[in-house]
């Protein structure tokens, strides 16, 4: 009982719509040849600008991009930000992606469209599982909102666009924000735009840096009272870069940081929140404990290295 072209069944219409959405979006999906073996995906985000996932770029020399028409053109890195796992490339190529007007909602059908070489594009279907945020990435990036997907993760799809069922881009897919956990995540378009603007302007997103490896610890009750308000927990220094900002200010291994710039830091995330771009170059006061005795240090905040 094949339906005639004029009267399609609902399922046939949906299937055709999905395939058409994929074909439409695929026009601006590229393969980024920046690592051995499988290429990563990228999106022609604006005219002459490709956005891809930072973690997939293993080299900056000899970068090429394979376009939808199978031409391979050279590309240069305009900027990259490990904290949000985004990289921006410049190249000579026509076209740019179409973006959806509204935001996606939990439960919406979405597709990933990837290109991992010269063998054409490929696609995955799933749905928006959750929209979370604001969220701080494990590398200290502040993300206003993040799309969590109910969708299978495939090789080479980091840097690919997340599209709606009309083929318009709603986000950028990356597996680089899950810290090794296989979570299908996508950065919404406004988040990507903000980072792309910053990277095109300056080549990087500056973030504050102390040069210490920290872990949250409980502060014993007897010592907690030394702080106002009393500090239940702080951050113990497990590694200290002697030449880093905190190391130069005299921070030592085993010191416990309890406040930074007057704000309590009970968790590493609290500290990240205090080390935004505006802190770079500023001097902040760290208070804490060394061997049970109060500690106070003045640290000039450095800039987090890109890697």
């Amino acid at each position, binding site marked *: 009982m*094949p339906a005639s072209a004029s009267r399609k069944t*609902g399922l046939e219409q949906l299937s055709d719509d999905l395939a058409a959405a*994929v074909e439409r979006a695929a026009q601006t999906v590229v393969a980024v040849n920046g690592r051995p073996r499988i290429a990563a995906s990228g999106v022609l985000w604006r005219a002459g600008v490709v956005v891809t996932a930072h973690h997939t770029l293993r080299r900056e020399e000899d970068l090429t991009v394979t376009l939808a028409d199978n031409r391979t053109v050279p590309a240069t890195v305009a900027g990259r930000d490990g904290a949000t796992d985004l990289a921006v490339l410049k190249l000579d190529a026509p076209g740019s992606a179409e973006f959806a007007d509204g935001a996606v909602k939990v439960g919406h059908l979405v*597709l990933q469209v990837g290109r991992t070489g010269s063998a054409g*594009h490929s696609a995955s279907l799933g749905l928006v599982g959750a929209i979370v945020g604001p969220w701080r990435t494990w590398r200290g990036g502040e993300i206003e909102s993040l799309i969590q997907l109910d969708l299978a993760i495939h090789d080479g799809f980091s840097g690919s666009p997340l599209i709606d069922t009309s083929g318009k881009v709603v986000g950028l897919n990356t597996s680089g924000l899950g810290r090794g956990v296989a979570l299908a995540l996508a950065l919404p378009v406004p988040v990507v735009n903000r980072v792309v603007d910053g990277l095109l302007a300056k080549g990087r997103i500056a973030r504050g840096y102390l040069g210490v490896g920290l872990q949250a610890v409980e502060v014993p009750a007897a010592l907690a009272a030394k702080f106002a308000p009393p500090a239940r927990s702080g951050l113990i220094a497990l590694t200290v870069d002697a030449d880093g900002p905190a190391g130069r200010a005299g921070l030592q291994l085993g010191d416990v940081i309890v406040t930074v710039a007057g704000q309590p830091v009970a968790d590493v995330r609290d500290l990240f929140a205090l080390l935004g771009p505006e802190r770079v170059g500023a001097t902040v006061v760290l208070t804490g404990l060394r061997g049970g005795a109060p500690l106070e240090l003045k640290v000039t905040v450095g800039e987090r290295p890109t890697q």
Partner: protein
Amino acid sequence: MIPITTELAGIAARVRAATVQVQGRRRGTWGSGVLWRPGVVVTNAHVVTGRSARVETADGTVHDARLLATDEGQDLALLAVSTELPPPALARDEPRVGALVVAVGNPLGLSGAVTAGIVHGRLTPRRGPPIILADLQLLPGNSGGPLADVLGRVVGVNTMMVRGLAAAIPCEVVERFVERAA
């Protein structure tokens, strides 16, 4: 308009009617097959291990099926089954990337289980025929079963999982094998 879920159930029923369960002569080798022409079943070569196999058609009849031909390289086998059941329609064109597809088979011995997903892409190996990759989960026992489009037309024969994707031998490759063998 018929609700999409009802439609999907109808397509699943049509594809299931053309799906068979294949048991090789060696213990523990079993999989699926698809009625390709009247009295002729296609399955994977790795499912059939002897000169014959036990085939259970969708109407519950058990047949002693004779092996007509096998191609280990393409992982295809052809069995003769005396059944009156009609074969399904075959898709003429290769499905588009993003199109909805359903796989029917007997994973873990479950008869006629259905999984749905989309066409992910096409893989063209250096040697051997092209492969359709579908974004859906195949389990042991799905081997040899049909991959079909939303009109219930067979687009390929499911073979294995490749990097988290279902790999199916396209219809035209199967058709060429059947032409040669039949």
